[in-house]
């Protein structure tokens, strides 16, 4: 009943073939990197393939890797094919889970950082609606053919996309000084808190 991660990886490779650009194991969970055009197709296969059976939609979110400190030996390409910087782009992250054969899959979909556009998977998983709305307002990703892509948390007149690394949290130091910065030669170390 329970599917070992290694077997799961093999099955995924078998079922998806060259649709995925990168498939690996990460802490006992299958880690896939998918190009934009294959994305929805891959999700559908993952759900419908009996051998895989990832019917449980865990979550959909995005990661802004623009300020991520990469090692040089990190081969993983997180930027989209279009953008120049292979690393440090923005990516959509979908996590699916198979309740029958117990295994997880993390789906990384690199997007173009400057104009992030991604097809919606509400056709595959209805539950993705809210998640995509949240990702849209937080990361500025536009999900095409989403039923109603309105803001979920933020007010309509909210400026900017908070979860982007470029969106600096209005530090409390605007409101008041950092109480820890009293010591003269420690004031420097106080920055950024």
């Amino acid at each position, binding site marked *: 009943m*329970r599917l070992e991660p290694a077997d799961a990886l093999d099955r995924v490779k078998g079922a998806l073939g060259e649709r995925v650009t990168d498939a690996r194991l*990460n802490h006992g969970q299958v880690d896939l990197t998918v190009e934009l055009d294959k994305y929805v197709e891959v999700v559908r296969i993952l759900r419908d393939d009996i051998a895989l059976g990832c019917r*449980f939609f*865990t979550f959909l979110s995005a*990661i802004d890797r623009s300020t991520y400190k990469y090692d040089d030996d990190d081969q993983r390409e997180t930027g989209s094919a279009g953008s120049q910087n292979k690393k440090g782009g923005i990516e959509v992250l979908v996590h699916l889970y198979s*309740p029958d054969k117990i295994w997880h899959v993390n789906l990384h979909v690199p997007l173009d950082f400057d104009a992030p556009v991604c097809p919606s998977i509400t056709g595959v998983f*209805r*539950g993705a609606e809210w998640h995509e709305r949240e990702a849209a307002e937080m990361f500025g990703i536009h999900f095409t053919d989403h039923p109603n892509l309105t803001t979920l948390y933020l007010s309509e007149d909210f400026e900017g996309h908070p979860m982007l690394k470029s969106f600096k*949290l209005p530090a409390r130091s605007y409101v008041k000084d950092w109480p820890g910065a009293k010591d003269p030669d420690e004031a420097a170390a106080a920055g950024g808190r």
Partner: protein
Amino acid sequence: MADTPKVLEPELQNLQDSSAFANEVSEGRLVTEQMLLNVGPQHPATHGVFRLLATIDGERIVRAEPVVGYMHRGYEKLVEQRDYRQITNLISRMDWLSGINNELPLALALEELMEIEVPERAQYLRVALAEMNRILNHLMFFQSFAAELGAITPTFYAFREREDIQYAMETVTGGRMHFGFFRPGGLKEDVPKGFVDMALASVRKVIKRLPDYEDLLTGNEIFKQRTINIGTLDREVAYSYGVSGPIGRGSSIDMDVRRDEPYLVYDQFDFEVCTGSHGDCFDRFWVLLHEIIESAKIVEQALAGLPPGPIMGKVPRVVEAPKGEVYIRTENPLGELGFYLVSDGGRRPYRIKIRTPSYSNVSALPFVLENTLVADMIAILGSFFFVLGDVDR
């Protein structure tokens, strides 16, 4: 009598030609004027500030649209600005009914990344505290559901049991709701003398009094009338919405992280995962009520087999997760709570995606609420056991 008060008129006007209205006519059933009922953000039935825009036709809800975000505190952004020690105390506020269960996945994720060995005593204590917290949470929803159905008495019985468990947990952690007790690698400190007896006593008292609850609600004909076959959530729909926890199990999703992927020492305890088969309010409630028994079982086993030893693993002075990503999920009282932790080796997480149970569960509400009555809406809201702080994060 008086003519139509001013406020009603405009909505009545623009609802005349709303699409749903047209559909009703085309279906040829008796159609009266529809009315837009704004439930919340301040409403007795929505624990927290939760808004529901319900278009009602008489007492029948044509469609309902939840509006969340009144409590959005931006946890996922906030944790990027805090170091791990502060995050522990921060996320304990996320779902204020199950504080210690919120701290668990963060500790687990850090231990996974930093490859910390957690001593067994700490694991047992973690299990015991987490399950006691689960009982607290379930008792809370037991009473709130009853109160929403109009039965006032169970509230006070449930709070009476809660008090004992809360007191036991307070002697350990120093807090009643926000515990801040789990640390990457173990616990903050060891439990005080007499805690085991206190906890066992409080838990057994709950078990002893559960029959009263059954008599008060589960066996009550009126209660059955209000809940059976009300707000049915289909299994596949629940899957696609990612509905988990008691609600998911209510609609026969036999899924429990504690059993499927045992994360602490859960694999050493014997407990059963209750599942309902109809997916209606009654099953959800029944599952919730019986999980109290199972949790109590686990607490008894964990405290009985509490091994001696340290409660803190080998942890470097500064909690700095090495580079890497990991998704850790635990069984929160309300469902699957998952942390997708992306670390770039700093003292602060690079990104944490918090997958909260209530969020996914509530997102399935519009589907369930269609074509129900206003009174049923309350029952369904109550039976979905969501915490707004968990939805809005």
